[in-house]
């Protein structure tokens, strides 16, 4: 017969605190590993969706498995403590392995990985931590059940664990990441976990696990010495060395925007942001820097004021300064990147950044272009191609409209995209096409200058299209500009008609399907991701390239068929209805989170800074609602409340894009808009979080399987919703797809529930 905790003995540690730590350590592990994973994936944002999908899948599997194996355990505290200790021990190991991922995957040093490999390795690396963490959720429920038999633990566990996630998000983003290296963070989190293992074991006085207790206590006492002693440094350095074999890693730090690494070799410093080469000094990519500076500035008769948005340091600024400019405003988002440039200064970078004509602004380029008071003769987008939501913000129709307002009469905008004189495949042609169409929709003239890198010039002065190579060469001579690459011959070659005709030939077949690159419909990102996958995972690349086939009517048809099939197979009071609806809610919940981050990123560009806060507020909403519904006890009609939430989620999904459009076009101050974003996060979290305790009442499946359903929906939301629906359909249609999904699950529930006499209400 089961022994129970002595209710007369006050608990050493409140149960809620155990759950808080559980949530906090889970999120800490998730964020730290995700950031490291992103470096190995060379900053490819597809990795975020794959990583989150893998994490949720493993958590879900762990929860389900633990529910099956230990759902009736008589020693839940020992099992809980054992799994928590395993999580604490395996987290640093997973971090070390992530840094060695290229080596593990058999990739060459510096080689990228494709989507299939990233998914496989995300699952393999996260399994040792995701599975235990998922199991802990189910075990926490069992622990509570045994302490308080008869009480439903679902709302409490879900709510406090989610609050822990919120606390973890805030702590990581605003305090730990800027201060500690990744190993110190996970070791400290591990120490906390081990401490709570001890607390859990001490708390359950009816369970005797002396060996485990001693082991956890010893480990908890040792972990801080590792975290704050020389061992942390050697773990950090050792793993970074394995991440960049053969290179001298002179700098490796995380900012809130990403990872900055500096590799040094034979007097050269290479600056990488999230594993991708961002700048090189003292000798930059001369060809790229000269062409991006001189083609636009020679096209202008007298460039005096120039705005450079990102990517200016180490080459581009030097070339710009060769023209008779009086003022150059240079906007660069990440202060840590500028700090690294200053710390490893070469004559090139020092000369550029200390030139009296240059004003460096540590701000997102898009926001600078929006808020700057001045007008410019040329705006040059120096950041790389639009392969992420962050970089895409400088290649959308909305940005081009913004840039147009910053230009003086006769001023021009310049940007570059991947090109080739040999051949431009479908993905790259689509990428070029959707951005060119966006520019052409705003400016009177948008002129491509095709080459190995395509340079685009856009202006309201139609004369731009007719400027000949001879004019540029004359200005080059008149301005007495000395160059290594761009000379009269090169200008003549660059502007030859054959390349324009060839470029038009490449673009013609894709122009219809490539779309127009917009803030809330970032076509360029999906084409860039398809291009990436064509290199590494041709099958995944083909899948993304054929994603154009995904349309809202087709999704609606698929949903209708799925609904009809589900209804045909349902049984009366189908036990599948609540779990299915919960999975759908998991899906839309993840989609909301990603849509909110996505929209925030499009408007403000510093979602990485705010992502912790946005997700945390979302989680807070979910936790508060879950706790509130759980605390109400026996909701009189759980079924009706559940159905009401289903309908509310459908309406909310449909209304979300309208709200986004209103926010985007609103003239109200930024802090009000940002407040609105937080309110939306809170509301969407509350709507999704309230369903879980109700589902637990409605379904006989039990807490763990229902949690697994919620997470499984989240997995699909991350992979299918975040990586496919949002980029392919755009924000509005993706939200409408979520609304359709909730309508389908509402209909399924309406038909399936015996509303008046739901099983547990």
């Amino acid at each position: 017969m089961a022994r129970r905790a002595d209710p007369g003995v006050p608990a050493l540690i409140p149960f809620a605190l155990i759950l808080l730590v559980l949530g906090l350590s889970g999120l800490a592990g998730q964020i730290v590993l995700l950031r490291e994973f992103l470096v190995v994936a060379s900053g490819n944002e597809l990795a975020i969706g794959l990583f989150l999908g893998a994490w949720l899948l493993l958590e879900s599997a762990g929860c389900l498995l633990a529910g099956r194996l230990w759902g009736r355990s008589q020693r839940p505290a020992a099992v809980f403590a054992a799994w928590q200790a395993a999580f604490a021990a395996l987290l640093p190991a997973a971090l070390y392995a992530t840094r060695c991922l290229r080596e593990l995957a058999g990739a060459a040093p510096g080689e990228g990985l494709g989507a299939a490999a990233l998914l496989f390795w995300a699952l393999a690396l996260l399994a040792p931590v995701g599975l235990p963490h998922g199991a802990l959720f189910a075990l926490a429920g069992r622990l509570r059940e045994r302490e308080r038999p008869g009480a439903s633990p679902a709302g409490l566990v879900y709510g406090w664990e989610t609050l822990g996630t919120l606390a973890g998000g805030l702590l990581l983003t605003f305090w730990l990441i800027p201060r500690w290296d990744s190993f110190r963070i996970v070791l400290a989190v591990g120490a906390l976990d081990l401490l709570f293992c001890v607390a859990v074991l001490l708390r359950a006085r009816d369970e005797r696990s002396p060996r485990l207790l001693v082991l956890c206590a010893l480990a908890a006492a040792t972990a801080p010495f590792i975290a704050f002693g020389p061992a942390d440094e050697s773990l950090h350095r050792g793993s970074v060395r394995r991440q960049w074999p053969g290179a001298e890693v002179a700098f490796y730090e995380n900012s809130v925007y990403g990872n900055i690494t500096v590799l040094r070799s034979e007097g050269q410093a290479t600056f990488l942001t999230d594993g991708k080469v961002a700048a090189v000094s003292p000798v930059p990519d001369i060809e790229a820097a000269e062409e991006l500076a001189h083609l636009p500035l020679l096209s202008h008769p007298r460039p005096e004021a120039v705005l450079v948005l990102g990517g200016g340091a180490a080459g581009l600024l030097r070339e710009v300064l060769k023209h008779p400019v009086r003022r150059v405003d240079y906007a660069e988002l990440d202060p840590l990147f500028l700090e690294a440039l200053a710390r490893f200064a070469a004559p090139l970078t020092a000369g550029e950044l200390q030139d009296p004509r240059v004003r460096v602004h540590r701000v997102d380029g898009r926001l600078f272009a929006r808020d700057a008071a001045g007008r410019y003769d040329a705006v040059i987008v120096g950041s790389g191609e639009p392969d992420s939501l962050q970089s895409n913000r400088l290649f959308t129709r909305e940005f081009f409209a913004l840039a147009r307002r910053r230009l003086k009469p006769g001023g021009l905008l310049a940007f570059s995209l991947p090109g080739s004189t040999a051949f431009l495949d479908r993905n790259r042609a689509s990428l070029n096409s959707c951005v060119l169409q966006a520019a052409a929709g705003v400016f009177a003239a948008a002129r491509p200058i095709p080459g190995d890198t395509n340079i685009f010039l856009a202006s309201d002065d139609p004369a731009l299209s007719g400027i000949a190579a001879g004019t540029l060469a004359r200005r080059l001579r008149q301005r007495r500009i000395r160059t290594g690459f761009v000379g009269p011959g090169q200008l003549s070659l660059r502007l030859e008609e054959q390349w324009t005709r060839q470029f038009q030939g490449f673009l013609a077949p894709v122009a219809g399907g490539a779309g127009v690159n917009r803030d809330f419909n970032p076509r360029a990102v999906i084409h860039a991701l398809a291009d990436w996958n064509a290199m590494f995972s041709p099958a995944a690349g083909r899948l993304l390239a054929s994603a154009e086939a995904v349309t809202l009517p087709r999704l609606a048809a698929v949903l209708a068929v799925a609904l009809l099939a589900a209804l045909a197979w349902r049984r009366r009071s189908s036990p599948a209805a609540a779990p299915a609806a919960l999975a759908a809610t998991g899906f839309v919940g993840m989609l909301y989170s990603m849509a909110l981050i996505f929209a925030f990123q499009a408007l403000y560009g510093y979602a990485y800074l705010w992502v912790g806060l946005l997700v945390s507020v979302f989680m807070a909403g979910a936790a508060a609602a879950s706790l509130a519904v759980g605390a109400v006890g026996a909701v009189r009609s759980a079924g009706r409340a559940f159905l009401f939430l289903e309908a509310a989620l459908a309406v909310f999904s449909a209304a979300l894009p309208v709200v986004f459009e209103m926010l985007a076009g609103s003239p109200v101050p930024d802090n009000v808009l940002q407040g609105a974003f937080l309110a939306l996060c809170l509301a969407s979290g509350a709507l999704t979080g309230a369903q879980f305790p109700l589902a637990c009442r409605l379904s006989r499946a039990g807490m763990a399987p229902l949690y697994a359903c919620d997470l499984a929906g989240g997995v699909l939301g991350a992979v299918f919703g975040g990586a496919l629906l949002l980029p392919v359909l755009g924000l509005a249609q993706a939200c409408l797809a979520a609304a359709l999904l909730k309508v389908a699950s509402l209909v399924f529930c309406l038909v399936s529930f015996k509303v008046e006499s739901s099983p547990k209400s």
Partner: protein
Amino acid sequence: MGLFSWNWSAADSLPGKECRFYKTLFDGQVQCRLCPRKCIVAEGKRGTCGIRENRGGKLYLITYGKPCSLGVEPIEKAPFFHFMPGHRRLVLATVGCVLRCRFCQNWQISQAEFEKVPYMELSPEQIVAVALKQKVQSICFTFSEPVVFYEYMYDVAKLAHEHGLKTSMVSSGYIEREPLLELLKVLDAVKIDLKGFTEKFYEEMAAADLPPILDTIKTVKKSGKWLEIVNLVVPGHNDDPKDMERMCRWIKENVGADTPVHFTRFFPEYKLKSVPPTPVATLVRAYGIARAAGLRYVYVGNVPGHPMENTSCPRCGKTLIERQGFQVRKNSLKKSGCPYCGEKLRGLW
């Protein structure tokens, strides 16, 4: 496209051309004898190159007459520095390659499936007509791996010679001796990408092996055709000074000190996204190693404006050809001689 329109139709719209170097095996299989892979190709299948297909027991080049790239560019872009400097060449390529270089600059065509890439339909006669119309001085087979579209290249080159045009090939050199000797009859210049000088590098980074490439280099030299060698220096992968020294010594001993060698700068490309660009100091060191090994014409590439991109007289050291990127800014050569000391420089001037 710049000169002709694209065709997106399926691969079997044209029959291709029967390959010249293959052997019929049993069960309808054939063995390609063009490159050292010697693929055994079953009925309906293709070799590693992706463009030589077994149709009914016969091996066909399916890209014959179907180039995907055609344009006019300066010869310096190849880079060829001793082959009529400053002249414009017609560049030509079809899909396909037998190597799997992780740093390929033209992976979109070299590693692509034939059916996924649009092409033009141009017979050798039409190519030569284009070249004459564009007033180029040579036709250059490049971008992907010209060896794999051998029959097309051969026919175009042969016809080009008949019309007074020069011909050149930019290749990895992965070809069997017999077809190479045949091909050299219609080529004037060959540039070989000697990607590294260790078996390990070729095996891991290019899925190929080194000895056949060294054989090709020797064969080209023996044939009397103009030869230049390019080595793309990839940091951490093929930049070991000892390997570079061995390579330079081998070049001098086997193909002579007058063979131009280019050490070019790598930039993150294709799968090597996170490999830093080559430090210029590494290239300068390679230059020094090559000169110390006795090579007379050594260049640093992909560093526009660098003085080692110029051609200097190996005897008096005076700069004779000044380059700016792909352009020749100044050429002081008098016929093939140095105007200052009279030294004859090797090359096709």
